[in-house]
């Protein structure tokens, strides 16, 4: 493999960075580039002209139609876009081509700096089967499972029987929850295995799946690692991402307050060992499940994570700038003993979906948006009022991150921030997030990855309005109707039937 480090090539000068992504993460990367004095080129699909990143970037190159395989997932189109704009480097963000070794290799072959690890590290960690073997060589515990080549559903069903239910089926090339299903009985095994294989095929271009025994009260704890270009690696402590719905993270925190200090030392040390073993460069995340005082390696994500801001808040670092600087320079950015966490940070993913019918996305034009600024509040968003939320991409439209001195204060700050956040035009999961944040299991921090499934299987419940609130809404209706020339007072209106998801 062509590895410039091994060959002792100098780091390349970077003046213009292409962004092979969309939405809020594209905005995040553009901000980092602007602060470093770098030019930006957004590689976008036809559907994404009306987005913040499109307006904020210095140049824009359309790389194809809305369909993923013709734009964001097309290596050829992305490479052509980068070359035509004359960019020196590309930041892949997360999702899309960020963990695609062939893309990283194509960049290398075209003399483009891929802001991320070398292709070999992506290949090794991206193939869950190879990853598991490398991890076992490092004596890091893994979860029992089947990770072979045989993809026949009858065979896989027999493997499930052997392991004992519940069993989780996952995309071998996957990440981020796509193509993952929990199988609870033989009866549903076949349908779920086939469905996971289809989702894997459509999301990652490979239908290969593997099986694992499902830990039913584990916490999702992940360690942020960072490798520099000189072969050193550090960790930036851990995040607790146990609040998940169907394996998609919903709320993330740093640090994990219930993590035993001895265990923290063990897993952070294991994560750094793994990063060094694969010559990891840049930001990466090693995910673990922690149950009954034991930890198990789940996977390593060889990219920036959606939830990177909580680590940035508690560690006082800028991971995206660090990624770019690492590609420009060989020297170590951070020394482990100087990295000290402070306070607590929480991130909520704001998704365009119906909070009362979980998982049903909401599309439309954002009519109005208001984020309540304040100390320790951060808003990473990809769309402004007037922008359309289309059905082509995932439903996350923004992230709200708060920092405070302690976890209880951070929770209160997040609740207040969410309550004052206004988004008109699409439904959002904010009511659902508020319910989660106020649940006793969330408040005491003991939640496991089953938290949402157990306590909120049907999303949020519509809340009964108080009499003054009903009066207010009636007044507001009259007022807005009068304004637009409608007949005031004619709307038969009952708040219950008109709240989201009920009507």
């Amino acid at each position, binding site marked *: 493999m062509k590895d410039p480090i091994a060959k002792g090539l100098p780091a390349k000068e970077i003046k213009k960075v292409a962004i092979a992504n969309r939405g809020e993460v594209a905005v995040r990367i553009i901000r980092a580039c602007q602060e470093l004095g770098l030019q930006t080129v957004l590689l976008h699909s036809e559907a994404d002209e009306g987005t913040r990143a499109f307006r904020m970037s210095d140049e824009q190159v359309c790389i194809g139609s809305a369909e993923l395989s013709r734009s964001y997932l097309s290596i050829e189109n992305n490479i052509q876009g980068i070359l035509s704009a004359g960019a020196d480097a590309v930041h892949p963000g997360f999702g899309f081509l960020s963990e695609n070794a062939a893309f990283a290799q194509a960049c290398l072959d075209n003399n483009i700096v891929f802001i991320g690890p070398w292709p070999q590290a992506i290949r090794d960690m991206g193939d869950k089967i190879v990853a598991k073997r490398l991890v076992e060589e490092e004596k890091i515990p893994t979860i029992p499972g089947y990770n072979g080549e045989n993809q026949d559903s009858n065979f896989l069903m027999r493997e499930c029987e052997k392991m004992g239910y519940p069993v989780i089926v996952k995309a071998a090339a996957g990440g981020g929850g796509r193509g993952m299903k929990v199988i609870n009985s033989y009866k549903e095994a076949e349908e779920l295995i086939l469905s996971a294989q289809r989702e894997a095929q459509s999301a990652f271009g490979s239908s290969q799946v593997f099986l694992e025994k499902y830990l039913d009260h584990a916490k999702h704890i992940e360690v942020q690692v960072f490798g520099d270009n000189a072969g050193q690696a550090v960790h930036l402590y851990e995040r607790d991402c146990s609040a998940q719905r169907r394996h998609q993270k919903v709320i993330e925190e740093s640090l994990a307050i219930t993590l035993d200090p001895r265990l923290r030392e063990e897993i952070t040390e294991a994560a750094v060992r793994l990063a060094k073993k694969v010559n990891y460069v840049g930001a990466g995340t090693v995910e673990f499940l922690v149950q009954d005082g034991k930890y198990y390696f789940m996977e390593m994500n060889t990219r920036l994570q959606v939830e990177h801001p909580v680590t940035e808040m508690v560690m006082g670092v800028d991971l995206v700038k660090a990624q770019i600087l690492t590609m420009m320079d060989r020297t170590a950015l951070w020394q482990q003993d100087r990295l000290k966490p402070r306070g607590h940070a929480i991130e909520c993913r704001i998704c365009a979906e119906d909070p009362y019918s979980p998982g049903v996305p909401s599309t439309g034009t954002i009519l109005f948006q208001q984020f309540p600024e304040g100390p320790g509040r951060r808003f990473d968003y990809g769309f402004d009022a007037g922008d359309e939320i289309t059905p082509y991409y995932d439903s996350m439209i923004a992230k709200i991150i708060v920092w405070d001195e302690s976890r209880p204060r951070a929770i209160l700050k997040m609740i207040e921030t969410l309550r004052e956040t206004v988004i008109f035009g699409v439904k959002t999961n904010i*009511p659902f997030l508020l319910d989660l944040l106020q649940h006793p299991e969330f408040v005491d921090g003991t939640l496991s990855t089953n938290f949402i499934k157990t306590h909120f299987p049907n999303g949020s419940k519509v809340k009964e309005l108080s009499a003054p609130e009903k009066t207010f809404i009636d007044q507001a209706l009259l007022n807005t109707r009068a304004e637009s020339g409608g007949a005031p007072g004619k709307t038969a209106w009952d708040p219950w039937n008109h709240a989201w998801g009920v009507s």
Partner: protein
Amino acid sequence: MSQVQRLEYNGLKGVALRTVNHVWIHLNGQTHCIEVQSKRMRKQQNQEKDPSRILAPMPGKIIKVMCGAGDEVVEGQTLVVMEAMKMEYALKASVAGMVKSRPVVAGQQVSLGDLLVQLKVSE
């Protein structure tokens, strides 16, 4: 696009925005989207609640059809699988019955509210 109004009544403060068919109101940390309904829309809505009509709950793509005209189906049976925002959704029968028609095929793009399966509900 109409203007956002900042309203205050009896000490409560809120934000409201009127569109053609809806009024959006943000009050006490909650957002309400209130439909300003016409008779036609009301009729359409009642149809949406009809369990014999399986409608697309969102725009997306049909990725699998699991029933055909004439099939007997039981309550809870998956009829069609669709994909939107990169996730799969199984649309299930909420009542037992017979499939009268299924006017969609795998691979087809559908819009919100499109009829996917018409059932004849068992007596």
